[in-house]
């Protein structure tokens, strides 16, 4: 059984992802939930898990390609996942000579990595050994791989034949569409699907044919999948009536690349650093955010004396009890969550139908990596105490750094908090993480002389900044929200203990 894996929906407004790296090659055994590819979308690196046990049979999308959500990226042969006891049965016998098959199948890594490691003399812990084991396996399964490739090609050819064009492989084509393709001689690659997962509907084909026939004589511009679907106003349908617009429609205004700046080559004294997929994704997101939301800013100074004292007193015991360091971050996060409950329009998104206020508070915490920016999300952050936030964020942060976040841990954020102080910044203006309403930055806590009453005192002061989408909130609401966070932090009882 060839199982086609498609580009998953990696976020609410995400319409495409870039294959950064294949973690499995054709012929590799994959276990269900095992990561098969690294995918990059706006700001995040995510790993795609295998939907079933099997053997990777074909990588449809090469590394570096941008694939729309719902389009196929690879196929996995699930027949290869038959019981370990009888690996021969797992392979289509007719396609492979028996001798080859047996030799290969014995060495074929089963769904788990263990058998491979067992076959190697080196200790499994050594990363090199693991890599060798894998490459060894690759060589060993060569014949099988060929067999699978052949099979996949056959399948694609069959679909091509029925689709009546050379490029329909990988499309989900209904009988009605197939009929129309045959009737009108349409190349499906030129049509952007408006159905679920980018499926090309009968209506899409009919509209395409109408446009084509209307403009007969003039050439049809070749459309890439990244391009917006043709304007089809009545098709703004989502499966359930709801304020969230269908992503396939949202995609429309997003340019495929941040700017069409052309560049002919490095001049004297210049070096061109090639763009990584992550760099491109970040660039696209930043440009889009700036173009989408009119940013406005507000900043207040927060007297962190109370937080400072609590933290000073509790940090040793906290680390001993929970195994994570107690920083200022969970205090601020807790205050942000409480303030969001009081000011729900900051926990919202813009839509043409109205401002979509989110009931759940999913707090994104920006994590800076050397070559990437990741915003893992603390789901239902309003249900967590300061301690709960501290441990959850520490866990997410650690896994963000080791690239082990799961997809749903980087999706669905409703508000983002950025601990810019951790890097030493004292004043920051962040760019909103779309489609959220605002992003908050907490800068470095600095001891400063401040006037208290009529005396000068030394107090730990933190700049707290907010960049907000002025379409959704005005300065009034934004400032109220920020001062709410400020008052919550300043009003903490310095004698309070953490549970």
């Amino acid at each position, binding site marked *: 059984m060839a199982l086609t894996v498609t580009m998953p929906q990696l976020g609410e407004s995400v319409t495409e992802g870039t294959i950064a790296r294949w973690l499995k090659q054709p012929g590799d055994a994959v276990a269900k939930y095992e990561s098969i590819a690294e995918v990059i979308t706006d700001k995040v690196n995510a790993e795609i898990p295998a939907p079933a046990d099997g053997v990777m049979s074909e990588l449809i999308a090469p590394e570096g390609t941008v694939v729309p959500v719902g389009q196929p990226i690879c196929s996995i042969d699930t027949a290869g996942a038959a019981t370990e006891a009888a690996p021969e049965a797992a392979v289509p016998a007719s396609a492979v000579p028996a001798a080859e098959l047996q030799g290969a199948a014995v060495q074929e890594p089963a769904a788990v990595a263990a058998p491979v490691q067992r076959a190697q003399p080196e200790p499994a812990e050594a990363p090199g050994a693991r890599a060798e084991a894998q490459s060894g396996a690759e060589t060993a399964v060569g014949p099988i791989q060929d067999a699978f490739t052949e099979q996949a090609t056959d399948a694609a050819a069959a679909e091509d034949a029925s689709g009546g064009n050379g490029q329909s492989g990988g499309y989900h084509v209904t*009988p009605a569409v197939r009929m129309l393709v045959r009737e009108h001689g349409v190349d499906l690659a030129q049509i952007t699907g408006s159905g679920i997962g980018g*499926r090309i509907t*009968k209506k899409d084909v009919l509209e395409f044919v109408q446009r084509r026939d209307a403009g007969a004589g003039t050439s049809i511009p070749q459309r890439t999948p990244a391009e917006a679907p043709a304007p089809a106003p009545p098709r703004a349908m989502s499966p359930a009536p709801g304020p969230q617009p269908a992503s396939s429609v949202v995609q429309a205004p997003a340019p495929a690349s941040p700017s069409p700046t052309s560049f002919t080559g490095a001049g004297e004294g210049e070096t061109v650093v090639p763009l990584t997929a992550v760099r491109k994704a970040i660039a696209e997101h930043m440009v889009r955010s700036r173009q989408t939301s009119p940013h406005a800013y507000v900043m207040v100074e927060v007297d962190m004396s109370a937080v400072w004292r609590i933290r000073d007193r509790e940090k040793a015991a906290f680390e001993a009890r929970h195994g994570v360091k107690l920083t200022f971050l969970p205090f601020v996060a807790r205050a942000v969550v409480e303030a969001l409950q009081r000011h729900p329009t900051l926990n919202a998104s813009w839509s043409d139908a109205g401002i979509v206020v989110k009931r759940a508070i999913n707090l994104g915490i920006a994590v800076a990596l050397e070559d990437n920016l990741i915003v893992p999300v603390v789901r239902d952050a309003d249900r967590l105490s300061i301690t709960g936030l501290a441990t959850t964020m520490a866990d997410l942060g650690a896994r963000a750094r080791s690239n082990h976040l799961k997809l749903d841990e980087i999706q669905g954020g409703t508000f983002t908090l950025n601990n810019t102080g951790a890097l030493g910044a004292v004043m920051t203006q962040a760019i909103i993480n779309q489609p959220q309403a605002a992003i908050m930055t907490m800068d470095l806590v600095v001891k400063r002389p401040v006037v208290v009453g009529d005396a000068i005192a030394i107090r730990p002061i933190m700049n707290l900044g907010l960049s907000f989408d002025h379409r959704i909130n005005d300065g009034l609401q934004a400032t109220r929200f920020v001062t709410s966070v400020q008052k919550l932090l300043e009003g903490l009882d310095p004698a309070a203990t953490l549970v």
Partner: protein
Amino acid sequence: MCMRNRVTGVAEKTYIEAIRDGIREEMQRDDRVMILGEDVGAKGGVFGVTEGLQKEFGEARVLDSPLAESLIVGVAIGAAMNGLRPIAEIQFQDFIMPAVDQIISEAAKMRYRSNGDWGVPMVLRSPFGGGVHGALYHSQSIEAIFAHIPGLRVVVPSTPYDAKGMIISALRDPDPVMYFEHKRCYRAIKGEVPDGEYTVPLDRARVVREGTDIAVFSYGMMVHSSLEAVDRLAADGFSCEVVDLRSLRPIDREAIVASASKCGKVLIVQEANLAVSVASEVAAIISEECFDSLDAPVMRLGGPEIPAMPFSPPLEQFYLVTPNKVEAKLRELAAY
């Protein structure tokens, strides 16, 4: 589609008035037409369909029967075979079970068994369907049992116009006709009904609303729920064709194929549960005849596979196919 003759005027009437008008007029024209059933006489029927008819036509033609459904249908079969045109009323479709042997083993088979010499020109009328807090014994939709049986006609009008035209056609048909009335239609559904004589064919579906994107097949009260949902989708630019099947046996294959092929996406809506039902038959016809036109899986919406309609109002709502549920399903199909 509808043959009109000797129509003198048009008035807005309820579904129940339309049925009564059709029966009364046919009784005035044809002495052979008579009614029998529980409480159909003095009381005028449990819902009032036969109100005033006993007074007008006398006890011999509007007969209160004992509480014995097998007797009602058995007597009607005998009367029909001996030259009358009886209407047997079963008070609720739920109560039809004791008469099923008479209907399926006798009425349905008479013409075949007698090599065409005998027929059973009987009309069996019965209300069905839920949504009126009728609970387990007054809410069922078991039309599929009879739609399965060769030798029977099964019709379900959804509008006052069809209700009158089809009861007249049924009374003139030489074979047994199961005429099922959705009880929620009785007073909720109003429409223009011509005065005087006209008939509506017993084997033709009707396109109630023309559209291009999704074909919705339905019957009885569900036609109205579907229309409400379709109107909501129309606001978003989606054009749905609504087909009132009207006749469940024989079913109008031609109409089903035409609308399904035209739209490419199909939703079948019924109140009954789905397994082995009218919706199953419609879906089967479409898969046999419209395969090359389909642009989405054929979808069905019906009651859940549980034994009966519950009494508890929230559970009744859970069971019922409401316009909201139809809308959600249509949107799912539209987005496909």
